[in-house]
């Protein structure tokens, strides 16, 4: 291969690494993304100069169509729809890797060395699982596919069998490289496997699923790098693979669950057995509710307020209204901060992006470990559309399915206000004892309407 092209790929890799490094601060992050994009542009341009690239009409057609679709998606998507967008992009990346692996196979069929064969096999498997898995994740987030935990008899056994089929046929392929039917079987079974692996995962577990698929899309690119013996694909793929794995582990830690437990759709099982106790106990007392006017008066005398947003805020598109509330409170010289649970929303950092969209300064957003000790010194904690991540049962009820999960200690605040549409339990299907606490006030209503009303009451004081 041409030395100049190889060196350009090395420079591309450096751009990717430096770009990710710049993401370590919101101040430099935008520049980092630009560096990373520059690396990509360089890689594309030098590839076009490769001596194996001889016809350009298909490249131009594909490039224009892909760029247009990508640009329209990126500019049209709402910030609340970001998890779907990332899910979809993961899928396209995986799909591209799958197709490149297939295409390479058809080029070299009869002279496939063992290592290339293994790389093609892995690329087909990971690319396919990423492709269909991400499309299902997209469907779940978009509401096309059920967001519930799906169970059917023998699901784990079926998945294991399918995996064994892929590996078995794969080994047979390595011994009979010329048999193209085997390749199609591997791809087909892997595509089915992707659907079956993601289908059982429930909506609130999506942060884990999306992170894991993100990692897969990187690994798929890396395996294509092994097929093409191309270092830039291997490096870029490995970086993304590592990134996805780290986010996956952070999400799992945020729910105090193992990766296995999430992938196998665990919470529903746990709820059916261990959770029986908490369901049987029924409501633990009366809830006190509050209206906007009373709440405004409570807030008027507060000096410290922490707002805890959850998926409900995203569903109600209430981020701008929440910012209005912040401004109204700050006008009364009240210190307002936001506490963000790692698994709030449907993907890592989901709440942060929504609040950034609404112009909430990022230095007002605090991660769980940075703010959890401050609730005891807080006058009012306002929970907006969050449920399981503030359930004290995780701390003090060993029989609860979410026991051991790190939660935001909103119940330590002098007053906790919970904005919710109704008393329905959260995703985990368990009652939230927070609602019945002595210092708890329920503020019923759609987040956008209720918080809007509250804000105008505060302004009228």
């Amino acid at each position, binding site marked *: 291969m041409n030395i100049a092209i190889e060196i350009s790929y090395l420079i591309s890799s450096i751009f990717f690494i430096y770009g990710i490094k710049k993401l370590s601060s919101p101040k430099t992050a935008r520049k980092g993304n630009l560096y990373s994009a520059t690396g990509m542009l360089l890689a594309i341009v030098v590839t076009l100069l490769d001596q194996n690239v001889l016809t350009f009409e298909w490249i131009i057609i594909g490039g224009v169509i892909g760029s247009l679709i990508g640009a329209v998606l990126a500019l049209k998507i709402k910030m609340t729809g970001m998890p779907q967008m990332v899910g979809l992009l993961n899928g396209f990346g995986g799909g591209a890797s799958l197709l490149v692996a297939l295409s390479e196979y058809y080029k070299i069929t009869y002279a496939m060395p063992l290592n290339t064969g293994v790389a093609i096999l892995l690329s087909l498997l990971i690319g396919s699982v990423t492709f269909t898995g991400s499309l299902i994740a997209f469907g779940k987030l978009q509401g096309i596919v059920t967001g519930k935990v799906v169970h059917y008899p023998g699901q784990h056994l079926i998945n294991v069998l399918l995996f064994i089929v892929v590996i078995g046929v794969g080994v047979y392929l390595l011994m009979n490289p010329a048999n193209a039917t085997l390749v199609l079987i591997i791809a087909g079974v892997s595509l089915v496997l992707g659907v079956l692996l993601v289908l059982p995962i429930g909506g609130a577990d999506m942060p884990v699923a999306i992170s894991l698929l993100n990692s897969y899309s990187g690994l798929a690119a890396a395996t294509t790098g092994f097929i093409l013996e191309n270092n830039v694909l291997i490096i870029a793929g490995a970086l993304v693979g*590592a990134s996805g794995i780290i986010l996956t582990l952070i999400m799992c830690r945020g729910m105090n669950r193992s990766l296995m437990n999430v992938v196998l759709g665990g919470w529903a099982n746990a709820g059916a057995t261990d959770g029986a106790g908490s369901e049987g106990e029924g409501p633990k007392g009366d809830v006190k509710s509050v209206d906007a006017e009373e709440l405004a008066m409570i807030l008027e005398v507060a000096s410290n307020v922490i707002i805890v947003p959850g998926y409900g805020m995203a569903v109600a598109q209430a981020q701008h209204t929440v910012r209005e509330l912040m401004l109204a409170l700050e006008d009364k010289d009240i210190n307002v901060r936001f506490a963000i649970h790692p698994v709030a929303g449907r993907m890592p950092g989901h709440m942060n992006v929504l609040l950034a969209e609404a112009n909430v300064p990022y230095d007002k957003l605090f991660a769980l470990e940075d703010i959890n000790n401050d609730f005891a010194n807080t006058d009012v904690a306002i929970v907006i559309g969050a449920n399981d991540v503030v359930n004290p049962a995780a701390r003090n009820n060993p029989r609860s399915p979410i026991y051991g999960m790190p939660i935001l200690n909103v119940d330590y605040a002098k007053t906790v206000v919970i904005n919710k549409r109704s008393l329905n339990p959260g995703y985990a299907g368990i009652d939230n004892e927070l609602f019945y606490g002595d210092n708890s006030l329920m503020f019923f209503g759609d987040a956008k309407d209720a918080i809007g009303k509250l804000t105008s009451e505060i302004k009228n004081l």
Partner: protein
Amino acid sequence: MDVTSFLMLIYVFVLAIFVGFELITKIPPTLHTPLMSGSNAISGITIVGALLSAGAEEFTISTILGLIAVILAMINVVGGYLVTDRMLKMFKKR
């Protein structure tokens, strides 16, 4: 390909994973969504393989697969970088 050059690829892969771990653990939670979409765009590097497939001299089944791969990878690259930029420009200090 001989064993040594294959081992070199594994070397590169393993070291890049370590670099990735080092870099990503330093990224604050507030930027985790842009990190995902941005790294997503990077995984569109498969475009390199797609271009090599779609640009082959003879038109074969490999070219068709390559063409579709170019479309998917370009959606990933263009969509990923643009949406990441759109998000990152919203992050402001007071």
